């Protein structure tokens, strides 16, 4: 199926349930819905799933220890974390619980508080009062397994942590998942079970009659429906307003993260590591981030938290880079600055109340907002899904489990993770398995081809990258870029000059050689006078 054919598919005229937004939350809800009905339609304006916050976050499955008591965020985070193993089962997505080491340092308390203490009090404050406080805080929130660590135990666990560390608390519940691979897996699982996904499809409005939602109006036509799930991330407020089901505002908050070379940093930190700050000391609304290993083994530092005007502002500023370096220079004094291979930013979608908004609209029947999902949204996803299903039931939908639900989504084969025997067997079956396209991440031609022809097909360089890791290594695509572009062109049946990095307006090439000379010639601008 070619790229063009896919875009020519007609939008269905009716769907039982429409999910707006193909981020991790929208896709997780869609997958859950397909347990009951195959008639689920997912819409997204981008050309791939996971194009917003789901592709650019720290991939952490928090425990809830960083959230304020009494918030929906904390409740769903604690529950979501517990549900995670079950949530990812059968998806073919790697999930590991690396834990979080909370490091207590002299900076963990404000100086004005410490001034009033004598030395012994101070020691007790850092090594007993604070750690116990953290553990008790966790207990109240329902977070179990927290362990107080002495200074020595901190270093034993994480030898690269600052020698200024005074004590620590280890939270074994913290996990890591690749957020865009999870999103892709969830939505592919949904599609396997009958859901339809329409990308490049922008919601422009809703038809609401008699206080009930009747249809979704898109740039590609209208879809009749009686139930809409608004999971539009940073745009959720605008989507809700289109239906008259709003009342909250999303203000974009940017988070930038630095990513390091796996070869240099795979052992640098074993768990997530964060410095403790007493409540009220933090300058920003973010949990403050930390250092953590991705599921692939790259060290990650960040994220920052910067309020921005533009919901598309995924830039990273010099100040943010400086801030990350400054912050982690203290916590991990010798972290390998030279091994940075990438830096990225994502946009959080907080409301002014800083809490999740998960509710059926009281203005428009059949319109469910799942909004304000900033961190720990990824960690809360299973519990958010559960809550949304409860809301749908309360609205009167009869949810009967299908008997023909397919419980598993087959994961794409990763050449780099196979044994040599398996590699050999595959190459003998199809030589494309023996052609390594990306040398840094050992990705073969066959994996790229598979990504382009997968259920949610990769249609550009970034799409292939997210699915296969081409260009994610230390050379950042310098060696493999033209090869991946050529495979995309071949498989999509388009000229290579139409291959893009991330959809329309992002061509890799501007033309063929001599094209410009010819154009200049036509304009009478000859570089070399041939007379």
């Amino acid at each position, binding site marked *: 199926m070619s790229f063009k054919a896919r875009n020519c598919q007609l939008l269905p005229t009716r769907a039982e349930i429409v999910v707006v937004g193909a981020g991790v939350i929208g896709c997780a809800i869609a997958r859950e819905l397909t347990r009951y009905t195959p008639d689920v339609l997912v819409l997204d304006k981008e050309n791939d799933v996971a194009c917003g916050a789901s592709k650019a976050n720290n991939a952490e499955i928090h425990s809830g220890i960083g959230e304020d008591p009494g918030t929906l965020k904390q409740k769903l985070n604690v529950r979501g974390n517990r549900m995670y193993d079950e949530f990812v089962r059968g998806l073919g997505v790697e999930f590991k619980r690396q834990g979080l080491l909370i490091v207590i340092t002299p900076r963990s308390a404000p100086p004005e508080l410490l001034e009033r203490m004598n030395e012994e009090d101070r020691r007790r404050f850092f090594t007993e009062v604070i750690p116990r406080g953290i553990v008790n805080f966790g207990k109240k929130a329902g977070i179990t397994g927290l362990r107080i660590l002495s200074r020595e135990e901190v270093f034993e666990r994480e030898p690269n942590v600052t020698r200024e560390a005074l004590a620590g608390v280890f939270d074994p519940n913290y996990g890591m998942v690749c957020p865009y691979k999870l999103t892709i897996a969830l939505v592919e699982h949904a599609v396997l079970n009958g859901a339809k996904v329409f990308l490049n499809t922008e919601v422009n409005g809703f038809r609401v009659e008699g206080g009930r939602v009747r249809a979704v109006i898109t740039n590609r036509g209208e879809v009749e429906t009686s139930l809409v799930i608004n999971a539009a991330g940073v745009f959720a407020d605008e989507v809700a307003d289109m239906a008259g089901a709003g009342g909250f505002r999303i203000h974009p908050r940017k988070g930038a993260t630095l990513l390091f070379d796996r070869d240099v940093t795979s052992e640098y930190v074993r768990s997530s590591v964060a410095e403790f700050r007493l409540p009220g000391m933090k300058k920003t609304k973010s949990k403050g981030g930390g250092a953590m290993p991705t599921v692939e083994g790259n060290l990650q530092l960040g994220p920052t938290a910067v309020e921005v005007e533009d919901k598309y502002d995924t830039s990273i*500023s010099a100040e943010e880079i400086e801030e990350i370096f400054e912050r982690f220079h203290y916590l991990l004094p010798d972290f390998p600055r030279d091994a940075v291979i990438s830096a990225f930013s994502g946009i959080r979608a907080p409301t002014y109340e800083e809490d999740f908004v998960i509710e059926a609209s009281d203005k428009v029947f059949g319109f469910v907002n799942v909004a304000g999902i900033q961190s720990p949204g990824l960690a809360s996803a299973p519990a958010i899904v559960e809550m949304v299903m409860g809301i749908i039931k309360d609205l009167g939908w009869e949810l009967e489990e299908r008997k023909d639900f397919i419980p598993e989504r087959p994961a794409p084969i990763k050449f780099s993770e196979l044994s040599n025997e398996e590699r050999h067997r595959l190459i003998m079956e199809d030589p494309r398995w023996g052609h390594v396209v990306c040398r840094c991440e050992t990705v073969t031609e066959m994996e790229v081809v598979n990504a382009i022809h997968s259920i949610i097909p990769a249609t550009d360089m970034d799409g292939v990258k997210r699915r296969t890791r081409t260009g994610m290594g230390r050379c950042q695509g310098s060696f493999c870029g033209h090869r991946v572009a050529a495979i995309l062109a071949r498989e999509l049946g388009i000229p290579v000059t139409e291959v893009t990095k991330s959809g329309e*307006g992002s061509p890799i090439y501007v033309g063929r050689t001599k094209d410009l000379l010819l154009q200049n010639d036509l304009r009478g601008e000859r*570089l070399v006078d041939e007379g």
Partner: protein
Amino acid sequence: MTKILRPDAVVIGAGPAGLGAALAAREAGLEEIFLLERDFELGGILPQCIHDGFGSIVFDQVLTGPEYAQRFIDKVERSGIEVFLDTMVLELRSDRSLVAVNSRDGVLRMEPGAVVLAMGCRERTRHQVLIPGYRPAGVICAGAAQRYINIEGLMPGRRVVILGSGDIGLIMARRFTLEGAEVEGVYEIMDHPGGLTRNLVQCLHDFDIPLHLSHTVTFIHGRKRVEAVTVAKVNENRKPIPGTERLVECDTLVLSVGLIPENELSKKAGVVLHPATGGPVVDELMETSVEGIFACGNVVCVFDLVDYVTFTAEVAGRGAAEFVQGRRRWRGEVPVRPGRNVRFVVPQRLRCLDREVELYFRVQRPERSVRVRVLVDGRVVHSRKARMVRPPEMVRASIPAGALNEGVREVVVEVTPDEKEA
């Protein structure tokens, strides 16, 4: 899986280094030599270097990159060296056993008598120099741009800003111009150019392309494709000076901000790398810290001239042959230390001590009217005048045969002001 292959030597990489090493090993009498190359053709980066300037020392001729490579490729094709193209080495261990893969043979297991590392280098990317901004299409390393234009026949941009005045950046400034693209300027963060003088003249000056020293790119604009970059003057600490920013519209940012020896395999084999070169610590046979694993060319340190790459390759190829033939003998261990105004020296150690040794080094800072000297335990064994030394240009010096023996404690290479002129 295929049975284990046991050639005399495996050379990893078939650029100028690998080609030269394989041929030298062959000439030194090794029978079965495998040359493994991950690309579809021999020559490494040379086929895309269609400009001239190669071979003035080796061949006493000025050749283009493809011409230079072809001289070796022709010899390899007649030599009986077995070439594996599109073949990627996945694993290399300290016992020299390795696993490679290609689409014809599947997984190949080899246990060669010797290994020569000749993987070359790669380009530093925008994130390694941490340029703030967006991540649009149109940010590209100079070598990749060269590949796109000269091999793929595709233009990566119309209006180009180049960051970094390394040789590839300068050459690409000219190449883009010759293809009808507009090069707005070359920006260099240092207060001196990064490339060879001849390239400054032939690639920038002759085409009226401005070079802005002490400038850098401080922001990349454009969400989908590059729309502009902000450039700014930098102070002596290479930090942008507020108020000097200027917005330059362009659709492409080409980076020529340094090369890094490609040593991922070397690390897997436990080869010790040198912090200043980023490549293996080698001796006068180009043997690394792991016995029987040799290295040559840009994998050892980034050379400015391909001729030097060829010279080190010949040493490594002959060394591998000596090793396999059981002729290689260590007589001692003598460190080669960088002295005044020397950043690093290759080789870093001497163990055979029985031959003339060619030393390659880079200076720390530009200096006029100097003397390049090699001292063996304080005794000058090599001394010559140089009108000018600059960090981008590799300097050669040599230790004559007979100057070394088991009792020597150290060799020092230094650059000192030439007293006679002072």
